[in-house]
């Protein structure tokens, strides 16, 4: 699942540019990790807690809370990424 990096380092060395490239790559790393985080949050309750106790209402609130957090996280990260592209 490896891909070529999107950005090529500029030939003119500049501390600021390198920092922004570095930051952009870590942002992309974070975005790539999102589905893993989501899978963890969504699947573990079923796999580990399984048939155990726990009320349906609590589970409902849990899922929607995780969902919301993931959406906000994704929106923040992608916006930061596109701002980086513009700037």
């Amino acid at each position, binding site marked *: 699942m490896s891909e070529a990096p999107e950005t090529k380092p500029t030939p003119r060395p500049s501390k600021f540019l390198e920092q922004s490239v570095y930051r952009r790559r870590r942002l992309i790393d974070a975005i790539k990790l999102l589905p893993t985080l989501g899978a963890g949050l969504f*699947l573990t309750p079923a796999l580990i807690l399984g048939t155990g106790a726990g009320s349906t209402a609590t589970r409902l609130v849990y899922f929607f809370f995780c969902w919301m957090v*993931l959406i906000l996280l994704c929106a923040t990260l992608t916006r930061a990424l596109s701002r980086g592209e513009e700037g």
Partner: protein
Amino acid sequence: MVTFNILVTVALVYVAALFAVAFYADRSAKKGRTKWLRSPLTYTLSLSVYCTAWTFYGAVGNAARSGLEYLTIYLGPTLVFLGFWVLLRKLVRIGRAERITSIADLISSRYGKSTALAVLVTCLAVTGTTPYIALQLQSVTLSFAAFVPSEAGGNLADLNSTALWVAAGLAVFTILFGTRNLDANERHHGVVTAIAVEAIVKLVALLAVGIFVVWGVSGGLSDTLQIIEASPVAEWRPDAGRWVGMTFLSAAAIICLPRMFQVMVVENEDERHLTVASWAFPLYLMLMSLFVLPIAVVGLAVLPEGANPDLFVLTLPLALDQELLAMLAFLGGFSSATSMVIVAAIALSTMVSNHIVLPLWLSMQGPKATVSGDVRNVMILSRRISIGAVLALGYAYFRVTGGTAALSSIGLVSFAGVAQIVPALLGGIYWRGATRRGALAGLIVGFVIWGYTLFVPAIGLLPDSLMQNGLFAMSWLRPQALFGLVGLDPLVHSIFWSMALNSVAFLAVSLVTFPSPIERLQGAAFVNVFSRGESGAGYVGGVAETEDLLVMAQRLLGAREAQTLFQQSAKDQGKLGYLPDPTPEFVSTLERELAGSVGAATAHAMVRQIDGNAAVSVQDLLAVADESAQMLEYSSQLEDKSRELEQTARQLRDANDKLTALSVQKDAFLSQVSHELRTPMTSIRSFSEFLMEGGMKAPDRKRYSKIIHDESIRLTRLLDDLLDLSFLESGQAAMNDQTASLHDVLDRAVSSAGASKGAMTVRRNPADEQIELRTDTDRLSQVFINLISNAQKYCDAQAPTLDISVSEKQGQVDIDFVDNGSGIPQSQQSIIFEKFARLSDHSSAGSAGLGLAICREVMARLGGTVSYLPGQGGAAFRVSLPRRRVAEAA
């Protein structure tokens, strides 16, 4: 009380509004006003075709029966969109780079443009989608019935005719807005916008019902949670297998469902829209599922025992006398059903038409079809018929199995069916080693196991004995306990075996088989789509006649698009005019463009037909191309350099050819000038001698004087032309800008050329000619007169006809003069604009051959061009003029 008639009226008004929206969007798109049509918001909303009536109504039913399990249907897609960077971004990029038209096209294209794979995936898609369409029709009829149980519920015939009208209406909508553009890569703005509107309607409807239930009925959030705890739903405990299995299924479905692929990849305008959709679409899904459980538990508590939970969204507001709310809910469900059917029908018809109908038609027409047949009309017709057929199939399925419980489980069955594409898809875009045979093997194995363990049992076709004892009474072949794996949920069981054996077959066969050169090229292009940029893998060497290719491309892409493409390619090669050399790069570009309208496999086959090469030699060439492609992967600089060199060499070669042609013709030109001057002088000298002798009768004297006079004028005109040309060439000629309507200028030209009363018919379209021009209209008129006179002189048809057509694009006005004669041979096309370049065949038609040279000079001075347009049937000239704003120049 809402009557059946009111309901039908509301539905009809709603549908009419959708038609209006689609029509308006199509028109705006045509005028280039696409700002909001192309916004990420529209894209995100169009993705909501994922939420069909099955999720709109069924999710509540599902929640009433199986608690939180309904969430998995939304969680899977959420995970896929959160991970857009890894998968969807690549899919969309490949879809755009390779001009993919459908999921079948993607798979076929990746594995060497294989027709077998395209057909297989198409069949899989049709099998999986038909029951799903039937399900939508059923939900619409059920929602009608729920509304007016007394009137319509008792009358089954009414319900069936409702379904029929719905299916017919959807067919009309889809054909109208879904087959307007032939090129599937040209987005269906009308359809997408209508879908986006429907997305809003269904979201608002569900939220309204939910808000009403939570705050209107239950008395707030915490009270609702308490009701949930107290309801039978609270008993539910997650089943790990089903939970993971269904999440996986829905994740697979969002990638592989034909309709999702259509809106997500094919209709995608801009890759960056994905960035927004990555969080906005999960948000949409979350909102859609937010109130599902509250509606379910309140429904269970409020409605009488035995009420169908699948219709709670409707029956709950109805039972609580909220008719307007119920009406809104009805429209929400209606929207969900119709949007799914429309997009599914477009996606399926594209596949069926491109991968089944068209190849069959082509093979029946023989090798000449691509040149002589009107493929474009055949394609549009076949796509329309396919849409009708898909919907008819869905309706038939509804009539046969309608009302049975079998239908309601079909959603997941359908998901599991299309999920069989996943191994071939993922393998295809991440692993270069994946082969066509591997993909075929995996798909067939997965398809068969899915059919046997899930699809056929689900639609109730297998006898009980077989279900209990297995095929041929072999217990290890029991459909729901394959290889003795008992105790699993049937769905999970089927997913497990089909996906496992599908993947194993795909991987194993890929490992032991060797890919053909096309597959290797395509594999590299797909897997490395981000590093290879736009120069995807193509192929073809050979001796395709560019003009034949142009003729074919015009039929498929439309004349203007094809001409633009050819002109651009010629320019990239450093050539003028419309006919680039048939280099491998050009042919593969063309093939990709054609793939946008007919699919990769068909485009490949068509280009090969014209190319005229045996399959074997194409393979050989490919092997070479593959080697060099790999080399160039490591050295893109080398690639640039060699392209530059090639272009320079081509320019030099062209220049040399031209010089040679000119010098060969120089003597002829001089002779021509001599001839043109001496011929009138001969008459003048001879007749003036007669007159000088005297003693002639008066009528003869008069006639001979007139001949002398006319011939003198001819001489003068020739000298004028020569002077005019050298004047223009020296750059001293001043252009006098005037404002005039193109229509008037053409009128003047046609009558000055005497074409209005001559033997030639001139056909024009005055409506297109209403364009205000700011230019030297006398000079422009001179060019038109020249072209019209040429057609009069040289058109050798029995009934000569000249078509003058005007079109405008991107600030440029094109005026085409096309006659129905035999045209100008390709070898002569490049020299006709040279001075005295009269074609040998026409050697004495009475002009000095300066006309076109003057035209070219005049157009250059006016900032435009005049060029020969090949492949139009007869001789065709195009005058292109930049359209300057009247105000701007004044």
